[in-house]
């Protein structure tokens, strides 16, 4: 009994509950005539697809800026990169990396401005981040209408103006990363390329937090006063973390798109931050402390739930409850984190 | 003092619920089907008439022809119906006024021939799927 309690304490109650729920889903999957191998494979694909975006939250959490509800800013940068790569008709890996490469300077610029704002509003970051994200997405709605792209893939053929709501990447770089070194055993498909890429990004973030600047950033998040007394420019560290978060968000969305197959413009990026935030918190992160372990575990659990609930519950109950379960789990997770006693230290 | 407050609050709660019930009953909208078709009830047959003017709760009358069924809407529980049966020439030959009250069911069927003939079963709950 004591051991169980200790385990729950160590893993965190929500993680235990969600983990248990996920195990249950996998256990009953065969009853619902669902291939477990297929489900695991789907979960892994979605995990790799979303992993980088969840990872993108880590720098800001670590530097004490809180949960990056402003992730849409990075996503917009990623969309710009992707659009340019399609516009210039670059295909395959070249196109993918071009998209990432081009999105980075955009992300850096957006992140810098965003960082400046966040430095002025210490203590209120999260709410402001949310609305900075929302308003930038809605501003970009106007931009998508006006930007002078010409590729027929992405503009309305007739009757409309501006870019399409969804732009297919299938002719350019659909699944180039997913299929790299991928293999299939029966129903089980493994997107090796995406996992290698995710591992590589994790390695970069891990490495970054081992550098002098990364160490300083962690200290800023842990106790900004201490860091200041040690001669660290706190605002600069926070800005760097925001830029980093935004850049990772840009890369994250490109990875997502090559697997998903479409760019979602207009209101597409609106709510993309919330699942990522929920996944990170589900992984055991708190508002001011997050590790790569949290990222991996959280993304797996969250995407597992997202993959399994529609298929299992739908076939068992003949209804589609997945959307609500997703809403309740993810937002419940965020509320849980916000109301926890341990609060951000200032 | 405390007791008075309790009584006041209980009374308020009661009033609240009572008002709710009152509104529920009094504001309930009913679909009324005015039916002018020949019906046979058991061994008795009630012939439809050529046309009639029907007025519900004293509102402006509507005209109904043979074999017609007109939908009307009534709000609340107690109502009055007035039927003026006309001959082919448009002359009123028979008038009948009835009071009736509606239960909580939504749709009711009023058989005008039965009403005119004085059969008490002239108003009935109308169930979808039947008839």
């Amino acid at each position, binding site marked *: 009994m004591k051991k169980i309690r200790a385990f729950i304490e160590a893993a965190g109650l929500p993680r235990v509950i969600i983990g248990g729920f996920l195990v249950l889903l996998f256990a009953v999957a065969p009853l619902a005539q669902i291939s477990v191998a297929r489900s695991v494979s789907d979960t892994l694909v979605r995990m790799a697809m979303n992993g980088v975006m969840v990872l993108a939250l880590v720098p800001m959490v670590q530097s004490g800026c809180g949960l990056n509800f402003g992730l849409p800013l990075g996503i917009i940068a990623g969309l710009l990169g992707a659009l340019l790569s399609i516009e210039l008709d670059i295909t395959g890996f070249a196109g993918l990396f071009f998209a990432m490469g081009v999105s980075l300077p955009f992300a850096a610029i957006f992140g810098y401005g965003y960082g400046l704002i966040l430095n002025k509003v210490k203590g209120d970051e999260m709410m402001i981040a949310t609305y900075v994200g929302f308003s930038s997405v809605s501003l970009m709605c106007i931009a998508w209408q006006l930007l002078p792209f010409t590729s027929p893939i992405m503009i309305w053929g007739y009757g409309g103006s501006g870019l399409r709501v969804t732009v297919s990447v299938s002719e350019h770089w659909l699944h180039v990363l997913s299929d790299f070194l991928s293999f299939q055993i029966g129903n089980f498909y493994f997107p090796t390329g995406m996992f290698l890429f995710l591992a590589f990004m994790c390695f970069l973030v891990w*490495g970054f937090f*081992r*550098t*002098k600047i*990364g*160490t*300083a950033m*962690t*200290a800023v998040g*842990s*106790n900004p*006063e*201490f860091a*200041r*007394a*040690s*001669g*660290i*420019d706190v605002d600069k560290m926070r800005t760097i973390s925001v830029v980093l978060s935004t850049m990772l968000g840009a890369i994250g969305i490109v990875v997502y798109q090559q697997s998903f197959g479409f760019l979602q413009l207009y209101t597409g990026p609106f709510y993309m931050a919330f699942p990522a935030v929920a996944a990170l918190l589900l992984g055991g992160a708190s508002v001011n*402390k997050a590790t790569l372990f949290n990222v991996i575990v959280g993304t797996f659990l969250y995407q597992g739930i997202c993959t399994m609930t529609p298929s299992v519950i739908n076939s068992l109950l003949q209804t589609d409850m997945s959307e609500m379960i997703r809403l309740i789990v993810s937002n419940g997770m965020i509320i849980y984190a916000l109301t926890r006693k341990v609060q951000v230290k200032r | 003092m405390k007791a*008075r*407050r309790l009584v*006041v*609050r209980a009374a*308020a709660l009661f009033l609240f619920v009572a008002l709710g019930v009152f509104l529920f009953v009094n504001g309930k909208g009913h679909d009324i089907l005015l039916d002018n078709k020949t019906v046979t009830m058991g061994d008795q047959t009630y012939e439809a008439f050529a046309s009639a003017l029907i007025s519900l709760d004293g509102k402006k009358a509507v005209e109904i022809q043979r074999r017609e069924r007109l939908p009307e809407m009534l709000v609340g529980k107690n109502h009055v119906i007035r039927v003026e049966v006309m001959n082919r020439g448009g002359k009123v030959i028979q008038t009948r006024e009835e009071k009736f009250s509606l239960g909580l069911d939504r749709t009711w069927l009023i058989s005008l021939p039965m009403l005119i003939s004085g059969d008490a079963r002239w108003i009935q709950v109308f169930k979808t799927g039947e008839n």
Partner: protein
Amino acid sequence: MTQEPLLRMEHIGKEYFGNRVLADVNLTLQRGEILGLVGENGAGKTTLMKILFGMPVIKETGGYEGKMYLDGKEVNFDSPFDALDGGIGMVHQEFSLIPGFSTTENIMLNREFTCYSPLVELFGERLQTLNRPAMRQRAAKAIDTLGVRVDPDMLIQEMPVGHRQFTEIAREIDRESTKLLVLDEPTAVLTESEAAILVKALRKLADSGIAIIFISHRLQEILDLCDKILVLRDGMVIKEAPTKGTEIRQIASWMVGRTVEDKKQDDAVRVCLEPILRVDHLWVDMPGETVRDVSFDVCRGEIFGIGGLAGQGKLGIANGIMGLFAAGGAVTWKGKALKLNDPHGALEAGMAFVSEDRRGVGLLLDEPIDWNIAFTAMQVQGRCLKSLLGGLIQWRDDVAMASLAQEYIDALGIKCVSSRQRAVELSGGNQQKVCLAKAFAVGPELLFVAEPTRGIDVGAKKLVLDTIRETNRHKGTTVVMISSELEELRSICDRIAIVDEGRLAGMLSATASVEDFGLLMLGAGKGPEVAAGVR
């Protein structure tokens, strides 16, 4: 037959986590009597008042010893609200007023006059409407009792500080039951003329039969106002005396007068070689520790002490020079001007600072010891880093960090499981040692140490002081030590400057008499003879 006193406290004692802060305090107070309570910071005044006022913190830390009688009945308040009901009003050091409310609203806060409204029966008492005219009248009466002029309709945020203080006192005396009023440093924020008005008002209150306990560092006020004084030192009553016939000098020596049994270990007369740090007209904007205009020199190789009462600005000096709070004036370090408001610059120049705010500024509580010790050295001097890719990337060297930390864990005897233990898990004394280690790791030429022994036990105190002395003697580090404990300063420093109201009150050799220090600290001895040594 003597009348039963209003308040009688018998054998009051209190321990915080095994740390004794009050022992066997006896106190009696008659109706209409004014008691001046004096003592250094940490002498136990605040704790005594907390016990009297039933503050929850007392109960949470195991209650107190002894008995209290109010009007002859034994009392033991569970919460400040009980104390208020019992007739004790308290005016705290920090204002307890709502800034956007008027004087009237604040005086009547949560005791508003109301008119009946029928909705009360449904939704409870609080739906009564306020009876503002009655409130205003009542508030005006309370202000009148004080004999001051405060506009009952003025908003607190638009008021001068003095009026806020009066508002707060008016609130306390407005309660019908108030028999005893405790004022904790009420004049600290007032100008002299305001303070004089306050003293007069309090006298008037006392004449109406209210007993007053008056805590202040301004001894002249105590003498002017009080009937008798009670001097606390180290949690014990040192002296209870009528004010009549008592002089400031006497009180000062009672307050600080510990005999120096602690002989200096190396009595060699140390001569000032050359000034290493020169401070000219420094001002620092540190909340609660404002430095207004301070100039002094620190000699190479000495231990320079800065003393003074809390809130007078002694802490601000170090925080200002180290760039932690906005500062101005000129600081010259080894002949070169030091850029102010730049913590990195100060550290790079070879200074280090052990902050008085150990948990807030001094430590990364959630990180391990090695991070705490090595962090500053790493960030400022690039230690504990290894270069990758030909110096392109500088990576944290965990091994070097651990060994650096271990070095100090051994040297300072930090009690811990390993260098990976989190700082939050250590005891206060060990945390302080980690802070010292962090400063030592930078290898500073000048070390600022602020309140190094605050909140740690006696054994650890000695160790910390010895460590500081050791560093000074053997490594030649110049030390500026700031402390509220005069004895501590006298036991270790060469020269001691006393700060009062943001200015240097004087500078004395550590061997000067306790009375002289006491007078300087209490701002009563400003004169040419003691001000010698102040540039």
